[in-house]
């Protein structure tokens, strides 16, 4: 059985405006962040490799294999040939 504090909440909830717009905005912000995360995940290793090469370093190919992007990565040549397990 509800107490009066809970009844007060019910009363206030009856006056809540339509929150579907808020829902849409939250979803868009989450999806936007997920997209940014995926882009970073896909390209960050390549950007880092490019930076290393520009500064005269060498890219460890075995390390590169481990760090390469998830399935569906744009450059198939970079994808690990023997499955996802590292090493």
């Amino acid at each position: 059985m509800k107490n009066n504090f809970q009844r007060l909440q019910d009363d206030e909830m009856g006056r809540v405006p339509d929150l579907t717009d808020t829902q849409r905005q939250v979803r868009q912000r989450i999806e936007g962040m997920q997209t940014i995360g995926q882009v970073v995940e896909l390209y960050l290793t390549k950007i880092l490799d490019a930076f290393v090469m520009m500064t005269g370093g060498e890219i460890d190919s075995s390390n590169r294999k481990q760090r390469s992007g998830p399935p569906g990565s744009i450059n198939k040549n970079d994808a690990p040939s023997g499955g996802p397990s590292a090493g």
Partner: protein
Amino acid sequence: MEKTLHRTKASDEELIAKYLETQESRYFDQLYLKYSNKVFSKCISLLKNEALAQDATQDIFLKIFLNLAKFGGKSKFSTWIYSITYNYCIDLIRKGKKEKNVFSEDIEKVADVAEEIPDSAILEIEVKKLKIILDKIPVGDKAVLLMKYQDDMSIKEISETLSKSESAIKMKIKRAKHKVQKVYKEIFAAREF
């Protein structure tokens, strides 16, 4: 499993697991629909401004979904959501300097009263009067009373939410009840106490 989620009411834990696994918005939508009205009503109750409450609801849900993987299931999901909601609103009030220190050890005139007001005396106040009284007491006091009596949070859960000791929370609730009594007497006369 998927069919079960649609046909019957899925538990919060099932929805969370499915959302984390698939990132599909339909699971997000179900959790949002279940809790958004309560989160909004808490926000408007503490912030007293509809536009602010809508923005707060949006930020709170973003926070909830970005931290969903951190929900360990130690408490109920609703308790976890409400903790985020109270903390968000209290921080917002602090930042807005509407109230300088929401949970300061306030030196209240009513503070050191020895006797405990029974819960029944607080819970028997009529809904309309209760609303008026809660709007008159400091927001920190209102928040602890809502956590205890509206959300059925334990002293331990409240203390974890507000990062205070359990004894500090007990004292805070005791003082808040005295403030409710005081405001009630001031506005509605003393008959019921």
